[in-house]
């Protein structure tokens, strides 16, 4: 199978459920990896591919919700919760924390597959955005501090003259900085540069600073 093909992680302490889910997932042509506990999942090496995490709500020691919280900080795949007995507070918490779906066992195949599909699509998108951002950040890291200062003025819509006045440097120098910025960031137009700055999320902060 293609190393970039999507993978579904299954975390459930019941081996029968794990086994059955893996079988179902493989029957639709997806890769599956099963784990008996949160710790096992966390410690495992994960392939760099769009993924989905099917997570049992009730797990020994570290519960599904706790694992979700822990993963929220990083680039974790979207989560589809499954549970033996669903209770409203848990499902609300899970959904609020960004779960794709919350399914009760025994689950409807369609719902589960749709949820997996949606999750993988979401993850693929997220992965794309993440790589884009990483690209931008790589470009941004090439900028000198002065160029980053100038960039924040540019994306805020300040004219070169005004910027030069505020920074107390010559207007020409601003123009040179701007050219350097455009080149280093790979932006073909000012509009593109502004979008890039938006993605980097640095616009406002530097303005406020």
């Amino acid at each position, binding site marked *: 199978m293609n190393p970039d093909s999507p993978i579904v992680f299954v975390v459930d302490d019941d081996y029968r*459920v794990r086994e059955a889910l893996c079988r179902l997932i493989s029957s639709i042509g997806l890769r599956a990896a099963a784990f008996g506990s949160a710790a096992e999942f966390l410690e495992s090496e994960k392939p760099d591919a769009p993924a989905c995490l099917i997570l049992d709500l009730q797990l*020994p020691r570290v519960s599904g919700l706790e694992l979700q919280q822990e993963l929220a900080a990083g680039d974790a795949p979207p989560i589809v919760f499954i549970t033996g007995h669903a209770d409203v507070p848990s499902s609300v918490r899970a959904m609020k924390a960004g779960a794709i779906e919350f399914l009760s066992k025994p689950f409807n195949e369609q719902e589960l597959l749709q949820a997996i599909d949606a999750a993988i699509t979401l993850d693929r998108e997220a992965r794309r955005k993440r790589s884009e951002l990483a690209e931008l950040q790589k470009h941004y890291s090439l900028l000198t501090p002065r160029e980053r200062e100038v960039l924040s003025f540019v994306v805020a819509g300040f004219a070169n003259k005004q910027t030069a006045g505020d920074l107390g440097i010559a207007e020409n120098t601003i123009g040179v900085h701007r050219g350097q910025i455009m080149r280093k960031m790979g932006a073909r137009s000012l509009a593109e540069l502004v979008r890039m700055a938006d993605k980097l999320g640095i616009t406002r902060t530097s303005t406020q600073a």
Partner: protein
Amino acid sequence: MQWHTVTEFGRWVKRVEAKTLRAERFNIGHRLIVCFVFIILVMLGADAVVLWQFHLVHAQAERLNDIDQTLVTLLRVHTSLLEFYAGVEALAQTEDAGLLVTGAGPLRTAALEDMQRAVSAFSLLPSDLQRGPNIVPTIHVIQSSLPSQLETIITLATSGDWRAVQLRLSNQVRPLETLTSALVEQVDHEAGEQRAQTVLNVKRVERLVFLVVPMTATVALLIAATLGLAITRSITHPLARLVEGSEALARGEFEHRVAITGEDELAHLGQVFNDTARRLRDLYGALQTSEDRLRLVIDTIPAHVWSAAPDGSVDFINRRWLESTGLSVESGLGWNWSSAVHPDDLKRFVDELQRALADGKPMESEARLRRADGEYRWFLIRNVPLRDELGNIVKWYGTSIDIEDRKEAEEALRQAQADLAHVNRVSTMGELTASIAHEVNQPLAAVVASGHACLRFLSAQPPSLAKAFEAAESIVRDGKAAGEVVRRIRALFKRAAIEKVTLDLNEVICEVLSLLHGETERRRVIVETDLGKDMAPVMGDRIQLQQLLLNLLLNGIEAMDPVLDRSKKLFIRSKRDCPETVLVEIRDYGVGLKDSERVFEAFVTTKENGMGMGLAICRSIVEAHNGRLWATSGEGPGATFCFTLPVKLSAES
């Protein structure tokens, strides 16, 4: 005639004994001493009489002797004088004065000596024999005149007047001779008379002796015999009465009394005998009373009482047994009682009894006995052996008590406990609905997922048969697992009769843990187990033991609900703590116990909506399995519940 005399004599002796002797007033010893002394005295008296008689005879003989002695003495004097005279005359014939002088001296001396001797002999004789009063004086005259006569003759001779001498001799000396010869004649005459008299006397005395001696002997014998007889009778008569009394006593006539006369030892013995008889009568009376009372007790106590020989054959049964069973004494003795035992219980009961008889150990058993009206009722039957000093069984004693009512009550209690346990199970299961659903859903989810996968594998182009087969296998397995959970749950809901089977306690623990899996996950409880490998099987009711573990585990889980600051851990350990028992320990890290003993009481609870029945039911379940359940709250947080169950014995042997 002779016989008549003897009986007369006997009668006389009796009279003597009755009227005069009154011998019983004295001790037998004294009486015998007196009697013997008296007999000796009588003998001595008789001897004295005999001796006296012999003395009389002897005296007469003495007298005769004395008379002879007198005569002899007198004759010797006469002879002496004749010799003297002849001597002197012969000397005078010689006419030799010198010769006369020298020869007359010794003659005179011899004559005088003889006379002196005669005088002294006469003086020794009894006075009445010296009846010739002239004998001694005559001798004295001769004595005194002889020397002077001789002097004169000598003088005459010296003067040579032999004629005068001759004359003198014939005139002076010759008369002396005549004198003595007269005396001799007189004495001889007297002696003859005396002898005749004495011989008469001797004859008389001899006659008397022949009369007196036998009479004395007879009288002495009679007196001795009478005394002896009287004394003997005075002893044998009371003895005979005593013997008669003893025989009466031996026959059991405690009212018999011995007549007492006198104050002797036998009278004392009689008194003691009478006292003994009285005391025996009292004792016998008391014994009779106590036996009557005992019999009354045995017959009236509300129990069957019996005794049996060492071989088990019954030799006594009390009235209550007879009344209760309506059987006769004969049909209860030996082994006949077995007809009253319920046919279903008979073999077991007889086996138990035979074993107890063989081992010599007390026995306790329950069996149904038929009542007079034909109804069978449960009885508790107990048997104990009585042993002698050597330890041999001499008797078996037994009781049986009607426990029908108790049995019914026990049955009702058991039913109530079973109902309560069932209610508790149902309510516990109600609490666990969510977890149970989880337990069922888990395999079902697997089944559904595998099912879908299977369908996909089959509908793929080309169909992936191997994978489809694998999926179908899982479906079967997981479907069975779901069915098993449902079956277990249904069993817990069922109101089933208690059925004790051989169980592996670890297996029961695992079943209950799987049932509680959802619950422990839901409540974030970590379950740790340490199940002993050396566990022995126990005899128990699976559902009850599941309920016991369910209650204890759930208790521990709930006790940890308020715990937020530490991990919730439930620790279950099983081990064989000794050859006879297995131990199960359930430790939680919850809030702990306030009073580790009161928690087992009914309606004692720390939970807001608890009934307080769970642990009480647990204890009744453990006790119904002959085990022990206790709780401790120490060493660290939480509480520990432990229970032990006896190991199944037959599996051991």
